[in-house]
């Protein structure tokens, strides 16, 4: 299960108790974990990380490193309860308020929260384009979803984010094409025995923290099962071209695609993409169960390599 704290902070009692019950169920030491921690007088004091501030002369790549260090310092949230509720359909201004709250409360976060934080911390970098990159992968009979914040600076692509896996988060802005970046992620997935199934690319996010625009999360949806390698690459480059040309909603013709009839990638939409009712937080990390994979995987009491 995947729990989300919807009541703000401090965490309300039902949510708090649910968090500890969940831990008791999944940790081999069961309730002893909670007994050791809850009410303990000698818990370490965790300093609140300082939000990075930059001199105007600090190069963008350095700033990105600092932003990533900050995100990393918050830590990946392994507790099983997400502390900040993210509704992807909220206007950017609301999400930026939430990001500000994240910096004040300074709690462990998961990938979607890191994307929102990444946007917030790079809003003043106007020469940096940011766009969400969502992944759907398959491992041992289950599907997993992950998201990072793609960045483009001076024609070089990279990413910010957080993940259980080191290779599925930060990428320095050194990739010459969007394809190279995505292929790098694909290879990283392969190294942790995941098969990448889908990539969803969003459009560039506004730098205005008070914008009432919604983030467009899936301007292009690329199904790797339906695309040849070359077509996958072409679609990625088409998306990159669209971002460069800053083709907005209904503001210009999309780049031509090879074969729209197949609908292997998301067509340019004149309207906003339909938004899910539920936030990412409502979805289980292994949302869709499939019949057991034909490839035998060692069974470590059903351990799943989550990303």
């Amino acid at each position: 299960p995947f729990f989300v704290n919807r009541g703000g902070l401090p965490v309300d009692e039902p949510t708090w108790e649910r968090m500890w019950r969940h831990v008791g169920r999944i940790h081999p030491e069961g309730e002893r974990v909670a007994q050791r921690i809850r009410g303990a007088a000698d818990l370490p004091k965790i300093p609140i990380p300082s939000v990075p501030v930059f001199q105007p002369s600090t190069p963008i790549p350095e700033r990105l490193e600092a932003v990533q260090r900050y995100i990393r310092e918050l830590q990946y949230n392994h507790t099983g309860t997400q502390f900040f509720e993210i509704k992807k359909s909220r206007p950017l201004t609301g999400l930026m308020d939430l990001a500000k709250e994240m910096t004040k409360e300074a709690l462990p976060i998961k990938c979607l929260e890191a994307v929102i934080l990444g946007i917030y911390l790079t809003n003043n970098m106007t020469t940096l384009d940011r766009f969400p990159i969502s992944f759907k992968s398959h491992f041992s009979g289950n599907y997993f979803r992950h998201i990072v914040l793609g960045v483009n600076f001076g024609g070089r692509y990279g990413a910010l984010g957080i993940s259980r896996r080191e290779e599925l988060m930060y990428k320095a802005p050194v990739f010459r094409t969007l394809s190279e970046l995505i292929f790098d992620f694909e290879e990283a997935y392969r190294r942790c025995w995941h098969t990448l199934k889908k990539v969803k690319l969003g459009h560039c996010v506004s730098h205005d923290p008070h914008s009432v625009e919604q983030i467009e999360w899936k301007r292009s949806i690329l199904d790797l099962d339906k695309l040849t390698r070359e077509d996958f690459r072409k679609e990625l480059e088409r998306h990159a071209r669209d971002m460069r040309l800053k083709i907005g909603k209904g503001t210009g013709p999309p780049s031509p695609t090879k074969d729209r009839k197949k609908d292997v990638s998301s067509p340019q939409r004149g309207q906003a993409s339909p938004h899910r009712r539920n936030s990412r937080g409502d979805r289980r990390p292994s949302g869709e169960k499939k019949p057991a994979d034909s490839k035998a995987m060692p069974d470590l009491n059903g351990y799943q390599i989550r990303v």
Partner: protein
Amino acid sequence: MDPGAGARKERPKPREPAARLEKAKQRSAQQELKQRQRAEIYALNRVMTELEQQQFDSFCKQMQESGE
């Protein structure tokens, strides 16, 4: 002179300092609770991170031993 002319209408008194004090106390209690929860969350996160790492390492070892 009209005896009523100099009399001011009695204004309702602003919220008593006691109410403000109470609110400040509640805010302080909430802040303390948040700090306490934060400390426990990070202590818990440390335990769960270690568990995840152990399980991942074991899995990788098994994969290597089984020759992938």
